[in-house]
């Protein structure tokens, strides 16, 4: 069951690669939050209850409710167009995502003496690289933020893999989540939305060397 959930998580990455509309991205991020909630619930059987409740609350309340709601509000408030307008065609994105997954599978097979469930490793690393690719291939600042949130989800999945031995690391992951999201989403996306009329990275090219 755990593996099924993780594979669904991996499939969301492929969907992200071919999706066109901003709302789809937001829904997928919320879905990833729910999946992480379920994974955390099943995986972390050995840690104390208070900590588990904290982790579960973070995944369900923060990742799958608060952040998507906030992103939707930003979309509305700044009148961002519904299309994602990627630099590359969706088909190419799909191929690149597939390549990323294949490379991480090869990498995971080359790791000797595995004390980690391989599928966690594959899911986490491919999410990380897909997130980076997502940032590089999309035009809007809000999609950059979404790419960052995808990376966070991947990292969170990886921290769940070692969560039983080191609950401290999962808590640090939560701290990273909340810190970065509040800093990036809360302060700057709001500010940038107010200052720059159309949120496009092409507007952020005024800092030059000469």
């Amino acid at each position: 069951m755990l593996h099924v959930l993780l594979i669904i998580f991996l499939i969301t990455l492929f969907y992200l690669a071919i999706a066109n509309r901003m709302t789809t991205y937001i829904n997928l991020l919320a879905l990833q939050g729910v999946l992480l909630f379920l994974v955390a619930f099943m995986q972390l059987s050995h840690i104390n209850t208070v900590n588990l409740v904290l982790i579960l609350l973070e995944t369900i309340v923060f990742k799958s409710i608060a952040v998507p709601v906030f992103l939707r509000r930003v979309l509305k408030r700044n009148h961002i167009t519904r299309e994602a307008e990627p630099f590359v065609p969706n088909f190419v994105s799909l191929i690149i995502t597939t390549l990323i997954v294949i490379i991480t599978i090869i990498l995971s097979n080359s790791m000797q003496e595995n004390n980690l469930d391989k599928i966690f490793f594959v899911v986490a690393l491919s999410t990380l690289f897909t997130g980076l690719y997502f940032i590089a291939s999309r035009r809007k600042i809000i999609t950059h933020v979404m790419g960052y949130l995808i990376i966070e989800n991947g990292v969170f999945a990886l921290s769940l893999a070692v969560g039983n031995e080191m609950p401290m690391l999962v808590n640090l992951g939560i701290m990273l989540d909340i810190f970065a999201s509040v800093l990036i989403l809360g302060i700057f996306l709001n500010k940038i939305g107010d200052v720059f009329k159309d949120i496009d990275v092409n507007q952020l090219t005024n800092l030059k060397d000469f």
Partner: protein
Amino acid sequence: MIIPYLIGSVGISLGLFLNRNKTVNYILIWLFVFLQSAFSVYVGFHYNDTEATYFTFDALGLIMLFTATLIIIPAAIHSYIYIEESEEKTPKTRATYFGAFALLVMAVSAAFLANHIAVVWIFTEITTLSASALIYHHRNKLALEGTWKYVFICAVSITFVFIGILFLSLSLPKAAADDLSYKSLIQHHLLLNTSWLQLAFLFIFTGFTAKIGLFPMFTAGIDAKDKAPGPAAALLSSIIMCMGFVGIFRFYTVIANTPLMRWASLVVGIAAFLSIFIAAVYMIKVKNIKRMMAYSSVEHMGLVMLGLAAGGIGYYAAILHLVLHSLVKSSLFFQYNQLYRVYKNKSIYQLGNYFKYNTTGAIVLLLAFISVTAMPPSGMFVSEFMIFRSLFQSNQLALLIVVLLLLTIIIWAFAKNIFKILFIPVVDFDESNVPKISPWRSVSQFLLIGGAAYLGLNPPMIFVDLIQNSIRLLPH
């Protein structure tokens, strides 16, 4: 004492954020400077103690903490001058600036002393937060762009460090599976799983390059130093870079004791060489004096890392070079504010004949230029020479020649611009509005540059001992 220090600094910082009264603000910031100095002295007297489990006052931490304290005293003075003379000052921007200033220095000091990689990581996060408040000081479109880039890249790199920590925890043997302190890592160095350790090193190194200002994440720091006020940029190019170095160095010490030593030094060496190369390329075409100084920092961090990768005398030289660079580069950024007050511009085309308008400042600029390009008799000449020697001794002759060529290009580009600023008059520059700048404002810069020369040419025994102690765990 570390816990009272942390609580006290956070308290002062919060007090600064919340209180908008001018007198209270300045009392609080001086209280903080006093607290920081008192804490440094305390750490000096409790050398090698461990406090609150996660903080050890070791040699490297001590050197870095003293460097930071030496820099923040003039930084506080220059911040005061900067804020008071700034045209757009409001109680809110002043309070935010000083609050972020105190928080940044606290986080950096704690990161220097932390003996646990996760604790270093937490304080690195706090520096991103506080540095972003400093960069956004002017609250205009360009500052927002710089802040956004800095925050975003630092957030990504901090995530990289976190992934590295996760991989590191996987490389540990089951017996020590919950202890990520550097001491325990070095103790178990033979049991660490090398393939996980390799991944961990790649991610942690890449993550910290955003703070130290190396390839590949150096861009964030350049934009940040361009947009931050001068004294804040001085902090960004000195103590934050030291923090990035400490983060990399402590983990490098662990990995250098494993069979991965050669591989790790190769990774560090490649990043270092590319940083110098990039710095050379950008220095030729950059026309913004502040960005030029920032690229020069990238070059020096590349040299520091080259020393670390070469080993031998390079270890010693790396730490010496880092300390001297912090002193000199911060004085250059302090001086920048006087330059800006004279010309109201930072494009090199609009700067010139500085000797005529501010003689003392021009002398500082000249001395800082000599120091930063490592010409004798400056202190950095000594450390840079030792780095070259370490490259020579490790049989990297081809690399050494290329690096020397790149440094020549950098010196040429730097000299061309600095001498234009010092001597060549600008066409139709309006002289009537040039303010008179008191020579007293340059005293701290003279002291820092002089101190760097002293530490380089005639290092006191205690300083040498501390550096030797901090590299003691590296294989020679």
